């Protein structure tokens, strides 16, 4: 069932080949149906999963036996959580790309290929296969940004791809080294993650291999100071691509770092843990600070992603059950919330106003022109700043409790990041939607029979924003799906937490959980 998430996505690409490009409606429908089918598979797999079962093999076939490479798909609670996230993000991303007319067929083909690659990474337990899917996910990203992007798109696309490839080059070196050393040590050469994880690598080797592989993956998770691809890439990308980029692609990095680097090299992890935790906290505070002074609406969200992914990396470094499960939940939560934020900024605002400069948006009084977008953004902003009742709160709370046990000082510093997070979110909310028309505001202040005047002036035909098209049905459905996801997880996190926690019980992941201080 789970493997079909991958197959379906690529079948969808294939199906799109046979639809004439002029039939945009048909193209969209196929893309949406494919993504929906993938989501159904993901949900069925997640709910059908027995949390006591550990890592469940989905498919295992020798692929290149000479090199010990096999086609090995499997899943545990961590994979399933992220597969579920990918399914939701894929469907919603298509809903928010409903207005794409320019080369729609290619757009959705690249889109589905990207989704297929991402699904593949999350359920591969053969490192070679994982790496193939990982690379497969990078290529469509380039085209999505370079062809359908906006501001500085060639630069953004190129920067993103270069960063990704440099990261994967580091990963590849580390993986091959591990493959060779394990082969020399045990006599069997294999890329099977479960087999490799049992090998006791020499300490000296782990000491340099761990940072190589971890940082290689974490580049994609926005680890400071390798984060600068993220804001420019997010800004340049079309809405759906930014949603996927922040929603799932950044999780690829965090997932790889957890699944590969941390399980293979426990001694290296122990040696570098403190340094990486410090980088994560710098990322949290730094990302929030930079977000506070951005003039471009999308850059604010882009930097907020860097800040929120810092919580994921910090949670990973705590090595406690609570911190690790918080990190995985934060991956899910950030995927949903960042997707929602980008949807509002990119699709609901930018596609209508054709500007993202906060200074330009300020006088428009967008809350009256597109109230649905305003309400959605307020909800997304609250979720993003860690308001209780939304998924981000539960996730960050767990990360912080874990961090408190491992690195108390860093946990306190995170508090600074949270406060600044509140500040930049409120600033963005007020500047973008609630500044109102300066003229109307002054009428309001100096007139005592304000209300009548106010409503008159709001309905004046000269109001430039009154011509904005209303929020369409696909946008409303997409926003509703994302809001529902974050609220359900916020109020009843047990649904996912049981799944995630079971992931850390398996023989592969259990040794990670040490608890206790550094």
């Amino acid at each position: 069932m789970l493997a079909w998430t991958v197959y379906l996505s690529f079948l969808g690409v294939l199906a799109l080949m046979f639809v004439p490009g002029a039939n945009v409606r048909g193209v969209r429908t196929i893309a949406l149906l494919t993504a929906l089918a993938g989501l159904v598979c993901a949900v069925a797999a997640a709910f059908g999963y027995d949390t006591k079962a550990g890592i469940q093999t989905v498919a295992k076939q020798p692929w290149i036996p000479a090199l010990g490479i096999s086609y090995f798909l499997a899943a545990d609670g961590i994979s399933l959580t992220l597969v579920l996230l990918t399914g939701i993000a894929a469907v919603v991303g298509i809903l928010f790309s409903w207005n794409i007319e320019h080369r729609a067929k290619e757009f959705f083909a690249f889109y589905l290929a990207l989704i297929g690659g991402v699904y593949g990474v999350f359920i591969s337990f053969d490192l070679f296969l994982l790496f193939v899917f990982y690379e497969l996910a990078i290529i469509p990203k380039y085209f999505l940004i370079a062809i359908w992007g906006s501001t500085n798109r060639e630069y953004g696309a190129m920067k993103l791809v270069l960063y990704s490839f440099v990261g994967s080059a580091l990963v590849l070196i580390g993986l091959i080294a591990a493959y060779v050393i394990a082969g020399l040590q045990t006599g069997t050469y294999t890329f099977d993650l479960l087999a490799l994880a049992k090998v006791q690598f020499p300490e000296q080797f782990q000491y340099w291999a761990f940072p190589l592989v971890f940082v290689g993956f974490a580049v994609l998770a926005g680890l400071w100071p390798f984060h600068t691809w993220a804001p420019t890439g997010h800004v340049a990308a079309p809405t759906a691509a930014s949603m996927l980029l922040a929603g799932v692609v950044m999780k690829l990095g965090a997932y790889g770092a957890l699944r590969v680097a941390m399980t293979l090299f426990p001694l290296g992890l122990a040696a570098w843990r403190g340094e990486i935790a410090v980088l994560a906290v710098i990322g949290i505070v730094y990302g929030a600070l930079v977000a506070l002074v951005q003039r471009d609406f999308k850059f604010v969200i882009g930097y907020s992603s860097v800040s929120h992914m810092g919580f994921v990396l910090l949670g990973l470094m705590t090595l406690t059950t609570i911190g690790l499960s918080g990190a995985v939940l934060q991956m899910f939560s950030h995927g949903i919330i960042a997707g929602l934020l980008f949807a509002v900024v990119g699709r609901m605002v930018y596609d209508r106003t054709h500007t993202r400069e906060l200074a330009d948006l300020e006088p428009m009084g967008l809350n009256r022109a597109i109230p649905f977008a305003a309400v959605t953004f307020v909800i997304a902003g609250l979720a993003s700043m860690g308001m209780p009742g939304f998924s981000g709160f539960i996730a960050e709370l767990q990360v912080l409790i874990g961090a408190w046990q491992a690195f108390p000082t860093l946990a306190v510093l995170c508090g600074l990041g949270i406060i600044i997070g509140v500040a930049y979110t409120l600033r963005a909310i007020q500047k973008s939607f609630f500044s109102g028309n300066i003229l109307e505001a002054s009428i309001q202040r100096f007139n005592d029979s304000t209300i009548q005047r106010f409503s008159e002036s709001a309905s004046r035909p000269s109001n430039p924003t009154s011509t904005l098209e209303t929020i369409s049905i696909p946008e409303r459905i997409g926003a509703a799906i994302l809001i529902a996801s974050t609220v359900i997880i916020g109020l009843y996190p047990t649904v996912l937490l049981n799944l995630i926690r079971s992931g850390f019980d398996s023989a592969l992941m259990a040794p990670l959980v040490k608890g206790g201080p550094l």
Partner: protein
Amino acid sequence: MAALKVGSVTSAVQSLWLIPVLPLLAAGLLAFAKQRHRVFAGTLAIVALVASFIVACGAFAATLGAHGERAVFNFTWLQFGETPLRLGWVLDPLTAVMVVMVTLVGTLIFIFSVGYMAEDENFTRFFCFLSLFAAAMLGLVIANNLLLLFVCWELVGLASYLLIGFWYHKPSAAAAAKKAFIVTRIGDIGFFIGILWLYAETGTLLLYDNGNGCLEGSALAQLVARTTIGGMVVSTAIALLIFCGAMGKSGQVPLHVWLPDAMEGPTPVSALIHAATMVAAGVFLVARVYPLMDADPANVAGHSPALCVVTWIGAITAIFAALIAVAQNDIKRILAYSTVSQLGYMMLGLGTGGVAVGIFHLITHAFFKALLFLGAGSVIHGCHHEQDIRRMGGLRRFMPLTFATYAVGMMALAGFPLFFSGFWSKDEILHSAFAWAPSRWPFYLGAAGAVLTTFYMTRQMFYVFFGHNRADEPAGHVHVHESPAIMVVPLVILAAGAVLLSIVGTPAWPWFHAYLTGHAAAVQPVAVDVILIMLLSTALVALGLGLGWWLYGRRRIERADSPDPLEALQADTFTVLRQKFWIDEAYDKTVVRLNRALCRAADWLDVFVWGGLVALVSYLAVGIAWVNRLIDEYVVNLGFDKGCGSVRWTARLLSLWQNGQVQRYLRALGVALAIFVLIFIWGCRG
């Protein structure tokens, strides 16, 4: 008999969740209501809160005979790391008295709002937010888990943000909302870190859990036994962190700056949130975690280091805010600073006298401050949204009912002897401060604050209700009018409350004190020192009243722009007070500027250093690429091209032969044949 009573507490706690859930449901329904459904919105919100009030009264009644018995209801919410996270609610006298106060005052303010907001286009949304606020506040009060309490605490902050910024088209309101949210959030981070630490130490966040809660014996003993940075006991450190949250929410110095600005919201909001309930949440929090605050290795009740901090912060806030209130001209801002000052008194009471002393002032203050704010709202409404007290005057003739109720509120706030609840609650605080062993200074500060309180309230009364009207309108055309009944009736009820509450808190029959501490109330003889303090506080009130009358009542204030009599007397002092000690400016110059500089630095780092590094690497790569290209072009390709060139030349030559003309092929064939024949012949000859 006792078992039966306790049984009723345990059964009452089962239905306690209804109290916050009813307004929450109302808020949820109203979120989807259309703007024109005004009657529906108002009715639904009020009915829901009244229903909550009834449940709250039931819970209150159940605790009456229970002698301080505490009942809890806990359930598992989620698996949290290795341990389950359990939430729950608790019913004890503190909870009971708070839920009754919040629902009662809340209901009255809701009713008042129907009149006050009648013309607002977003009436429905207003009641949605108000209900959300009430739900969160009630949830906070009943929570038996610090995390649940924190969740509600944040929701209360959110509702407050939404309501302060309700008229978001006013830039000042939008800025005030943002400021309130961020400043309180600064305190909340301390609170949050305290929660994390407490969880790490005790492994539970349940307050009471049959002996295993974090406020109960074993956990406290564990916390007291360990020390942390600077030899501080862990319990003290955690208590102080939690107190940070209380300072933010209750506007204690130096985090008080948001509260006066929050007056940009509609006046009922100021009354409900920024006077009666939400700001009291900080005081309530200290009372709720009082066992933790009180935990002390030296085991001297009431003098633990954490409580000393609470006492000092409270005393300083009480005098500091009272000083600022003396020089303000906005009717709501005066009340706002007065609220800050009174919250300081509550903290002072908690620190020196314990839960009952602080909470009694909280309850009485909720009534008379809600009364004063709603009275101010009525004045503002009557004066067509004028808030500057210098442009009022003589209103007692135009708004007699508002005047009468406002006067009751003013006397209660000032602590006018015997008939007003404020007198008894403030007297109790002064008395416990007087008896506080570590220092006598908090008492002096509190006493001085009491004089100032009476003074600024007298000043306000004279400006607003006496003299003649100083509005800018031509004489004889005063448009001031009394407010409609829906606004005046709540005022009357609150005024009654402000007077009647004094019955339960006199030293002769301290029922409230006994109820909160779980003793049976009894009539008791009044000690001599209590009477002395009462006489002293009466003298203080008289002094404040006299000063106020001498400055503001003796001579008429002629025009709106004539200088304040105090300004004429002491210009420099007055300026300092009017400018609120320049606290906002100081923050602007330090914290805000530092933050901005950090942001700029980080942004600069990103654009120039990290971006520059990336650019450098890419230029390097491009440079190498160019070198490669040149090598390719002039070294590698040159030979290759030459080779290719000669091949191409040969090919072109050869291709001449293949132009597809059959005749030419035939001709060539013929020629070749002829040559062949000739060679053949010539060869055969030899």
